[in-house]
């Protein structure tokens, strides 16, 4: 373990990228994540790595495609409107089975929106975003330490499954400063014989494509992808629970809203309300199974998000109608206080019991 440092979330992510052996970073400035590009523009050349400020997010994601297709560790980052621009490229990356890391420092929208944090890109990240049947592994950090840790994890998962991985952060975690330690890390060896490095005499030519013009071939390719996503769902679910063992009610939240709910939970406990917090770390694959188990124990779950209600639908799917699933949301980049979240829960408990 290296020394303890105090760093901004975006910069911790950038430093972790260098330490994780990222060969190439392509990005475009957008608030609140331009620090990632700036940090890497300054540091990557020192390690002889490639960094390009591209002409747009569209160009960035297509540069990631080229780099990933040639077998290199490539990443890009942006914020909500820029991630929208990347959707075609992400679909191509998933269809061509290319490993890469994409970071969304979510800001409130829709449209140009504001630069304050939001969680309105949940659907875009886990339900599709780009066209066609594909999924990305989506990691949701809730601290600066996780911003760093998920870069190593993200690259490893991307290469293990030959699939894009998304780190779904937000403007607050990107901008806040906290302590962080970078671990000693060596990238695992992965077979990259499929990459376009130039055709030697002893193998057939490699081509990277997501085009399968014959419907039979397209169907087979989709079967292959679906089989991969099934393995991901069975093996890569990650979550954290806080005081759920004796909980009567459960907050379900990820990222920034989970941090606020943690404080809400502490206040509730002081008041004698037995509230627990369930924090998905992977929002794809979503921890449906564990939530179903908890539905047998708690009386009600409340999803807390910085949007109009997106992850709440996955919570409803998880509990299969066994218990009520409620929602508290805040939009426009406004931050809920722990007190107002708890107040909403208390109202729901009151109406439920009276």
């Amino acid at each position, binding site marked *: 373990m290296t020394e303890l440092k105090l760093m901004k979330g975006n910069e911790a992510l950038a430093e972790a990228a260098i330490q994780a052996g990222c060969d190439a970073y392509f990005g475009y400035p957008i608030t609140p994540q331009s620090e990632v590009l700036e940090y890497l523009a300054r540091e990557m050349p020192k390690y002889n790595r490639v960094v390009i400020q591209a002409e747009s997010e*569209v160009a960035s994601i*297509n*540069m990631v*495609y*080229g780099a990933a297709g040639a077998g290199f560790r490539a990443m890009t980052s942006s914020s909500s409107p820029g991630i929208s621009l990347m959707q075609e490229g992400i679909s191509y990356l998933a269809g061509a089975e290319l490993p890469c890391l994409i970071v969304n420092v979510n800001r409130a929208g829709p449209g140009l929106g504001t630069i304050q944090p939001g969680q309105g890109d949940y659907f875009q990240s886990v339900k599709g975003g780009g066209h066609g049947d594909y999924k990305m592994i989506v990691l949701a950090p809730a601290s600066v330490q996780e911003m760093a840790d998920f870069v190593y994890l993200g690259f490893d998962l991307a290469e293990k499954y030959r699939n894009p991985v998304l780190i779904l952060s937000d403007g607050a975690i990107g901008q806040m400063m906290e302590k962080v330690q970078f671990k000693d890390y060596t990238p695992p060896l992965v077979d990259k014989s499929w990459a376009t490095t130039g055709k030697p005499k002893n193998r057939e*030519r490699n081509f990277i494509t997501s085009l399968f013009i014959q419907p039979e071939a397209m169907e087979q390719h989709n079967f292959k992808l679906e089989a991969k996503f099934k393995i991901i769902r069975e093996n890569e679910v990650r979550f954290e629970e806080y005081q759920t063992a004796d909980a009567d009610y459960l907050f379900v939240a990820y990222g920034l809203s989970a941090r606020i709910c943690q404080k809400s939970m502490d206040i509730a406990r002081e008041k004698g309300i037995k509230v627990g917090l369930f924090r998905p770390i992977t929002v794809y694959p979503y921890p449906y199974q564990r939530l179903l188990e908890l539905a047998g124990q708690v009386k009600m779950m409340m999803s807390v998000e910085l949007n109009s209600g997106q992850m709440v639908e996955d919570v409803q799917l998880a509990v299969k109608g066994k218990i009520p699933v409620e929602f508290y949301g805040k939009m426009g980049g406004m931050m809920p206080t722990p007190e107002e979240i708890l107040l909403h829960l208390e109202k729901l408990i009151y109406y439920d019991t009276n």
Partner: protein
Amino acid sequence: MIQTDEHILSGTSVDLNPSVGGEDEYEMVYHKPETMVDVCMHYCPGCAHSLVHKLIMEVVEDMDIQEKTIGIAPVGCSVFAYEYMNIDMQEAAHGRACAVATAVKRLMPEKYVFTYQGDGDLAAIGIGETLHAINRGENILIVFMNNAVYGMTSGQMAPTTLVGMKTTTSPEGRDLALYGAPIKVAELMAQLPGAFYVTRQSVNNANAVRRTKKALSNAFKYQQLHKGTCLVEIIGNCPSNWKMTPLEASKFIDEEMIKTFPLGDIKLPKLEAI
């Protein structure tokens, strides 16, 4: 009455007057490059794409760089270029080949990287990526197939469609007032300092084919210098969407296309840049 003969089954050629006597020794002076995949290409009869694929693969064979060449295919009729060129290739999203090639070349500067793009891919949706790649002086070759029409999607107007030319989206002919004039990509990009060698050629007769091959060969060799982008614009035909026979299309290039798109070198490498 159309009939087929037995020799067709064997696939050999038909000699109308086989030469008498065997005292002449013949040596092979031209064959299909071995860097092409031995398969029938899907392109229409007379299409310039298959011809230029052949020329590029000839250069790769001549220079013996099959192991070091990576091509980026576009979206368009030549989306299947990777079925015909026996080199590592990547299929890029529509218009983005120059961005993809940028990354490949930056990460593997010792390799030969080229994009192969049509009018829509390079000059419409991809004009931003094309311009910025050339402006950055990426050390790649951009092969621009200009046939003034969108082929694969069945004949819509392209940024390079001639004024007055009828296409499915300009049924009365391209209207200058509504759509502007055709874009002269070679002249436009040659202004950028990052462009090292820019030329416009055609392939509608044997000498033009020789010149185009020379241009491509030079462009590949210039990649070793790392002095900027090479852009080879090639005026090609699209007999199907021009609604002409291949021979008529060749004439159309000489009589009409070259008036708007003059052939020749637009920017030669400066010797002091070497």
